[in-house]
């Protein structure tokens, strides 16, 4: 088991390196730069001085400096938030996003998997149809609408949660639930398809033939196999959920990391773009690896391939 993991880690490192190079190329190819915002132009001398201050006067030099810094986990200064380093920005926002994202993924699994199982077992009944409609509704509503609706219902009318902000445990459920909705839909759908496949397979028929109870067959024999697509979906989903969502953060006023992706891109803040992308790519690689290991644990047939 050990050397395959090492091989996967090497491959992951290569992917992150490719992501870095590609992002860097996109950043320098973009028109505009962080030093001239909008209509207001600064004199060329001042721009040169600013570039020198941020080591941006030579793209090649900047490429290597940022890379060396990133390997030491020091992402350097941001260009738009004065006196903030990228490390400070990430350190202040990533834990918030990770907490919300983790909770969202938990909610998605706890609601989505039973929903998928029930609609597969009760196929073509009204339960299945209503589950499917709920799932598609979850995929069809923009997050800013569901978030605002939850906010209005739970905070304004029922007064159960604070209206936006961050700091106490009461601030957590609404953003997490909003973030979870599309994931619930995906998880339920994948579980249903996986469960239908599993229920039709030979080992389930064997289990039934040997006299196992219906409940036991569904939850003990079929589910571990049926859930494999869900587990592989959760890898990228966790990376995505844990790096925050701009919309959820804006609707609920949460200081998460999603806003930095958007603002960094809009401001052409090279340092922040590169550091947030590197954090995302690293998380993605790690979660994908983790998820593959879980898959191998669930299905011994895969373990030989990993």
């Amino acid at each position, binding site marked *: 088991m050990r050397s395959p993991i090492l091989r996967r880690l090497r491959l992951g490192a290569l992917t992150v390196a490719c992501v870095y190079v590609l992002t860097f190329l996109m950043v320098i190819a973009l*028109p505009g730069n962080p030093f001239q915002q909008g209509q207001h132009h600064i004199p060329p001398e001042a721009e040169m001085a600013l570039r020198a201050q941020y080591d941006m006067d030579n793209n090649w030099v900047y490429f290597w400096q940022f890379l060396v810094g990133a390997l030491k986990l020091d992402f350097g200064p941001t260009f738009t938030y004065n006196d903030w380093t990228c490390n400070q920005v990430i350190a202040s926002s990533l834990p918030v996003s990770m907490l919300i994202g983790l909770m969202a993924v938990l909610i998605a699994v706890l609601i989505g998997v039973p929903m998928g199982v029930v609609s597969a077992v009760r196929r073509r009944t009204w339960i299945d149809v209503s589950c499917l409609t709920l799932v598609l509704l979850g995929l*069809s*509503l923009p997050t800013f609408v569901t978030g*605002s609706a939850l906010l209005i219902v739970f905070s304004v009318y029922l007064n159960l949660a604070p209206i936006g902000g961050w700091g106490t445990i009461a601030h957590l459920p609404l953003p997490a639930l909003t973030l979870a909705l599309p994931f619930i839909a995906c998880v339920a759908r994948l579980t249903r*398809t996986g469960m239908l496949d599993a229920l*039709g397979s030979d080992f389930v028929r064997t289990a039934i033939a040997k006299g196992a109870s219906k409940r036991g067959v569904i939850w003990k024999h079929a589910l571990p196999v049926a859930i494999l697509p869900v587990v592989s979906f959760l890898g990228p989903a966790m990376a995505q959920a844990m790096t925050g969502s701009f*919309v959820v953060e804006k609707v609920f006023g949460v200081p998460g990391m*999603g806003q930095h*992706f958007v603002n960094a891109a809009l401001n052409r803040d090279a340092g922040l773009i590169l550091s947030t992308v590197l954090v*995302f790519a690293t998380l993605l690689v790690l979660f994908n690896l983790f998820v593959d290991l879980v898959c191998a644990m669930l299905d011994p047939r895969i373990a030989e391939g990993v």
Partner: protein
Amino acid sequence: MVNCEKRTINNPLRRLLRSRTAQASAIVLFGLILLSLVMLPFSVRWHNAQELTRSVRHPPAWSPVQLDSNQAADHTPRDTSSAFAHRAGSWFGHDDLGRSLFYRVLPGFLVSLAIGLAAAMVAVIIGVTWGAMAAMAGGLVDQALMRIVDTLYGLPYILMVILLKIALTRPLTALFAGHSGYADMVILFMAIGGVSWLTMARVIRGQVLSLKNELFVEAARAVGAGPVYVVRTHLLPNLVGTIFTYGALVVPQAILQESLLSFLGIGIQQPTPSLGRLAADGVEAVNTFVGYWWLIVFPCAFLVVTLLALNFIGDALRDAFDPKSRAATLV
């Protein structure tokens, strides 16, 4: 009985037409498109007609509220259709500039649908070309192309869309000099389509790899057909099902992406309406005062109905073209 079963299995189109949800979705969608097209002349006239005295944030009403302040002079509509159109203007209420929401939602629906379809088309063109190229070339080229796809998967989606949009803005604005509204829409669907082709490329590559070894391709090769000819005449017809299935899934996603970008303020620009733009404006209005419910309810209702219908059709397409997932067919 047996005969009937055989025929339906062999014909994906027939299976598609048999799905009742897909039928209903198609009917609803066509109904909305027809309504929007019929109303288009009035929408063009009134979608940005501001009236800042009586109709500002006027709630939905059966009787018409003034549509246009210039109209006060000749208030009497000439013919019956125009009178009807005038009356319909207040059905969905009015926004904060007194504009008729009815005549903003209908063209907004068309704009959103057009962006979704165009983005899906961009994604299909890039994805199919990329995947087919990788599979046909094989070897190092294949590895390099697919490594690029893997790398792009490792980038956050929203960041990519924004970067692509920034990159496309300057050349396309120059191209559409003087028509900034069109330039906006083109930039938007190219940016969304430009990041939605990754799954398509992977799936097409897999399909082409397996089709490449079929006898009919070998036969074509043997009589001297080049790779481009083989892809065009022998492989594309076999890929149609896959292309439609995955293309149909991109359309609702692209519409949702557009609404997200509009919420960020970098999507469709005023005064052009789109469902996402209208929903985002509605959310803002409702956040200040819940009483302005119609500003969010109508755009969102249109958005949800459109996306539901598109998702149902996409599901039916997948079931129809993929015999393996037929077990999962609902209704």
